[in-house]
């Protein structure tokens, strides 16, 4: 019986390590993008593009977004901007109408009288108008607050020269003028999850998600996926991405098309935004349940590589929980395997962390310079100490206390060991605590300190875990807009 339990615990720890290995695997694919990319099939191509800008109370940002859109390096007669005003109650209509008058024939105001149903409904209102006319050859779906670099659109359209490509996405880069600690974390995360991870997905020939603020569809592709955006989930961008690929068209990530976005500055705002994304991903996983790990049905989307990458993100909290259970189980079973397995798993985590961090800061040195502290503290200072412990246990448990003339008792050593094993799970409630603390009197100091200690990665895991709970309970799907101040770098 003990033998079975021991191997069960070992299996738990190994399952828990899969997301770490998957992260390393994904990053090992990144350099292959030097040769396995879509550029050989790209060509100068400037189709007639309709830009759809969903706007709900975006008066602070939408005017400048339009100003920048009309200045894109793109033939003016081939670019039209349609702002779909979702029954805004602020000055959005006035701002858009003023721009429509300033740029006649290029900016259009489409008004929904019933609003608040979410971005997908707003987009569909615009798409129904656009696709009714023959003029449109491609549609760019964006957010009202993002800023496109002048060359970004034509760098996206060049991939549509290949008729096999149905949609193209850009690199959404955090672009706050005065980045707070949270936006610096997000800035680094975006380089890792987009500029790096989406290059890896280009290599695999399958993309997980078109960025909501920068998705360019060919007209043929939009019509093939039904001419509308999915309204049944909170992850309409991901649904469009998967449907495009299920219809046999490719989705390409263009890293040199850069779009700047303003991101949440607080844990609370991030939690709200990511909870929506997390719940959306749970819904998408269920909706396409017959897709995953079936390469014989869908060669790329159903491939094992893509499936492991997808579920490593979605099920990361469960993997962390299993890993803790496995290690603690081995400890109480008195197995010598506990220490050995712990060391190997955390050493793998250390190697992965180093490889990912060093690669990521080189992919976007500007963000690397701005967010180097957040890059180091991404898994949390406590987790870094745990990695150090796995790397040099003797140093932490014996030599360091010996410097102060201390010697750990067996009870002390066991307590530390158990705490380390449990940390993979405990870091999630600790991150939740940081969110709770944020709204207190000491929140401005305590919350950031806690996030650096606990880690931004565990914070995202805690939010993912919350998304399971909300989905399990069937909580109401609310489209909570992330508040924007209109401060993005030019």
């Amino acid at each position, binding site marked *: 019986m003990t033998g079975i339990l021991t191997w069960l615990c070992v299996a738990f720890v190994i399952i828990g390590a899969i997301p770490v290995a998957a992260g390393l695997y994904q*990053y*090992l694919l*990144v*350099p292959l*993008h*030097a040769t396995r*990319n879509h*550029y*050989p099939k*790209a*060509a*100068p191509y400037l189709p007639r593009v309709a830009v759809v800008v969903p706007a709900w109370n975006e008066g*602070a*940002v939408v*005017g*400048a977004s339009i*100003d*920048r859109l*009309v*200045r*894109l*390096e*793109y*033939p*003016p007669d081939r670019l039209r901007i349609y702002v779909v005003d979702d029954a805004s109650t602020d000055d959005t209509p006035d701002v858009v109408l003023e721009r429509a008058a*300033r*740029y006649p024939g290029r900016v259009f105001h489409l008004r929904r009288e019933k609003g608040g149903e979410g971005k997908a409904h707003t987009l569909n209102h615009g798409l129904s108008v656009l696709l009714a006319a023959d003029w449109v050859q491609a549609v760019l779906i964006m957010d009202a*607050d993002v*800023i496109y*670099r002048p060359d970004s659109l*034509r*760098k996206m359209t*060049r991939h549509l020269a290949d008729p096999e490509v149905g949609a193209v996405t850009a690199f959404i*880069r955090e672009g706050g*003028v005065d980045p707070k600690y949270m936006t610096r974390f997000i800035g680094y995360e975006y380089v890792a999850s987009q*500029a790096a991870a989406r*290059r890896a997905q280009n290599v695999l020939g399958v993309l997980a998600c078109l960025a909501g603020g920068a998705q360019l569809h060919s007209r043929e592709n939009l019509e093939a996926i039904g001419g509308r955006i999915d309204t049944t989930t909170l992850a309409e961008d991901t649904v469009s991405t998967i449907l495009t690929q299920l219809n046999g068209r490719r989705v390409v990530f263009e890293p*040199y098309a*850069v779009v700047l976005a303003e991101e949440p500055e607080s844990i609370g705002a991030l939690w709200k935004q990511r909870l929506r994304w997390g719940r959306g991903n749970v819904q998408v996983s269920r909706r396409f349940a017959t897709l995953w790990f079936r390469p014989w049905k869908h060669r790329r989307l159903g491939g094992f590589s893509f499936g492991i990458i997808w579920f490593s993100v979605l099920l990361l909290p469960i993997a962390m929980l299993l890993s803790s259970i496995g290690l603690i189980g081995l400890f109480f079973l008195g197995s010598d395997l506990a220490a050995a397995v712990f060391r190997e798993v955390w*050493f793998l985590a*250390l*190697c992965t962390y*180093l*490889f*990912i961090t*060093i*690669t990521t800061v*080189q*992919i*976007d*040195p*500007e*963000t690397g310079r701005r967010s180097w502290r957040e890059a180091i503290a991404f898994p949390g200072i406590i987790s870094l100490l745990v990695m150090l412990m796995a*790397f*040099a246990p003797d140093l932490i448990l014996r030599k360091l206390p010996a410097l102060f003339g201390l010697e750990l008792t067996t009870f002390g050593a066991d307590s530390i060991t158990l705490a380390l094993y449990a940390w993979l799970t405990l870091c999630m409630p600790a991150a939740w605590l940081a969110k709770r603390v944020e709204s207190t009197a000491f929140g401005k100091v305590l919350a950031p300190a806690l996030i650096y200690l606990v880690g931004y990665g565990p914070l995202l895991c805690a939010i993912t875990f919350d998304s399971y709970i909300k989905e399990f309970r069937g909580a109401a799907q609310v489209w909570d807009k992330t508040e924007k101040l*209109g*401060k*993005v*770098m*030019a």
Partner: protein
Amino acid sequence: MTEPIDAAEPIPVKEAVGAFVPPDMPDEEKMTTEIQDDRKHERFLVRAALIAAVGVAMVILVRLWG
């Protein structure tokens, strides 16, 4: 790799308005060259991964040695 985006003089979006200036469009030849340049530029990823691999290799060596 992305280049710095006018980081020296960030402009709040609210203030970023002004008279319309027609965009300066590159010609087809320049756009073709740009695609080739971006394609070549992707080689930096190999260098980045090699540097990261050296970092990891050093840690592994220290562990094996120590």
